[in-house]
């Protein structure tokens, strides 16, 4: 039963990650793959606040989200004023650099990882309660993003993606929109991090390496960039596939690379054969307006 709950919690966390990553790269078209590090920032911040200050998990998770959002500014502000391409490089550098810091300082437990994260909920209901939390966070994230991208703000994002130069020349501050979206997306990844930290109670730096971005890309590209439900499908797939692979009865040292190969291969195939992913973007909400001609 615990196993089922773990799966549900992972599904919830992955949906938050996929939906927020989709917001950044699918909707706003920002070239960043540093999503895992914001997941890490949220997780470590929440965990450390709980361990050293006894902060309750909800506040700690929110703090983690805020920290992740603030750190996102450290990447977006300097690089976006130059070009979107710079964001690409800055995001990789930031991810790897911050990982180095995490691996080397005592307080995060360095390479060995951070364990003994306190949790307020113990006992048999733990799995059930966390499942509800994770799935609620997932639902909240999907609906929040859906609300943002329908309506005027979403229209601006679409126009920006269609033709950024024309968009800017109309008087729109594209840079500010990108920075805002990046902050929201990274903040949501931080929330996912907090939930992960308090349920699994153990964090290691390896989970956030550059290969982790391949997993996130799989969810978003295969699920469908630019759609609301694509990330959900992507997250479900990401949780289901490894389970399916265990049925192959491979020796343990083969599992991780085979899984990785399948994920990356899927991304490549979809990029070429079905770029819109499994779930096509839904048409935007029509503009409500008076019928033309009536005065």
């Amino acid at each position, binding site marked *: 039963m615990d196993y089922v709950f773990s799966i549900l919690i992972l599904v919830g966390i992955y949906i938050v990650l996929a939906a927020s990553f989709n917001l950044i790269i699918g909707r706003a078209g920002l070239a960043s793959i540093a999503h895992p590090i914001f997941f890490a920032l949220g997780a470590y911040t929440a965990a450390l606040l709980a361990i050293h200050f006894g902060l309750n998990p909800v506040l700690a998770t929110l703090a983690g989200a805020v920290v992740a959002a603030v750190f996102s500014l450290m990447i977006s502000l300097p690089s976006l004023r130059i070009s979107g391409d710079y964001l690409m490089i800055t995001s990789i550098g930031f991810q790897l650099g911050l990982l180095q810091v995490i691996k080397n300082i005592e307080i995060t437990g360095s390479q060995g990882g951070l364990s003994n994260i306190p949790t307020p909920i113990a006992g048999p209901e733990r799995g059930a309660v966390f499942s509800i939390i994770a799935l609620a966070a997932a639902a909240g994230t999907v609906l929040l993003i859906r609300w943002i991208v329908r309506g005027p703000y979403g229209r601006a994002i679409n126009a920006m993606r269609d033709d950024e130069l024309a968009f800017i020349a109309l008087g729109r501050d594209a840079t500010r929109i990108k920075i805002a979206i990046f902050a929201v997306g990274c903040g949501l990844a931080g929330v996912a991090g907090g939930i992960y930290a308090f349920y699994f109670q153990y964090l290691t730096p390896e989970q956030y390496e550059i290969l982790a971005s391949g997993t996130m890309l799989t969810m978003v*590209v295969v699920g469908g960039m630019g759609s609301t439900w694509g990330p959900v499908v992507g997250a479900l797939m990401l949780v289901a596939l490894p389970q399916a692979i265990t049925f192959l009865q491979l020796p343990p040292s083969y599992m991780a690379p085979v899984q990785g190969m399948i994920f990356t291969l899927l991304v490549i195939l979809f990029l070429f054969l079905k770029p819109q992913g499994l779930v096509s973007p839904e048409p935007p909400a029509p503009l409500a307006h008076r019928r033309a001609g009536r005065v």
Partner: protein
Amino acid sequence: MFEPAVLAQILWTGLATSSHMVLFTIAFALVLKVVKLWNFAQAGMMAIAFYAMYAGVNQFGWPTLPSVGFGLALTLAATLALERFGFRVLRARRSSSLLFFIFTLVCSEFAAYALTLIFGTEPAPLFERILSPVRIVAGIAVSDWDLLALGVTIGLATALALYLRFSSDGRCLVAVSDNAELAELYGISAKRAYLIAFALASVLVCAGMYLYGTRTAVIPTAPLQLMIFAVIATLLGGMGSVLGAAIAAVTLSLLQSYSILIVPSKWQGMILYVFLFVTILFFPSGAHPMRLLRRFGLRRG
């Protein structure tokens, strides 16, 4: 600590170890200049190059030269296939740079996973013996590897420079890198230029991995880390300048080597990223000395 003998030794060894980094950087910078592509798939190319050579030497028992040839052949095949069936398709579809970015990165990750499957995660050098004979020259320890590394790098870099300057193909590359559409109007095939650029990059990558692999034990995810250096050096050298990138690579490498005098070893890995941030914040168009002087008001123009 700061005795001249030590400093000189660090200089020599630093220069020698910068060799493969320079080769990786030149390869990356060349592809960026000609194809206008941030080729993160180069990490995959590097991994394939090394492990093909490794297989040749250790699995098939071939002597060095055929193994290197095998490595080069596989790298060339993979790279040219990538350009022909991957990038060309994305280009024809006018895909965004985000898609190119995802594609190149995922290709490298796929290669890393595939090679982990085949070769495992145990660090492995190309030959079993890493150490090479050392002699003392003017108080500095000079190893055979150092000489080979410097020789290969200087040789290849010079050959590339001459090729770009004097051969007709080389000049096509430069023309395409300046303005691909204009070059097409003059009958220069951009597609061919891209293939040549990738082929040259494959050679450089292979040589670099040979040097790197004969000195260090390699794991499948190592190239991804090495790539970051190449990217930073390219940025620092100014995009579009292969020479600038090479100079930046040597400089960065030397700075890294000398940093052990000041920075504790556990923070060595961070230096590169600090440089990346400094570059993005203050020198986004590269740290060209003339531009720097102008920027700080020391030279009109």
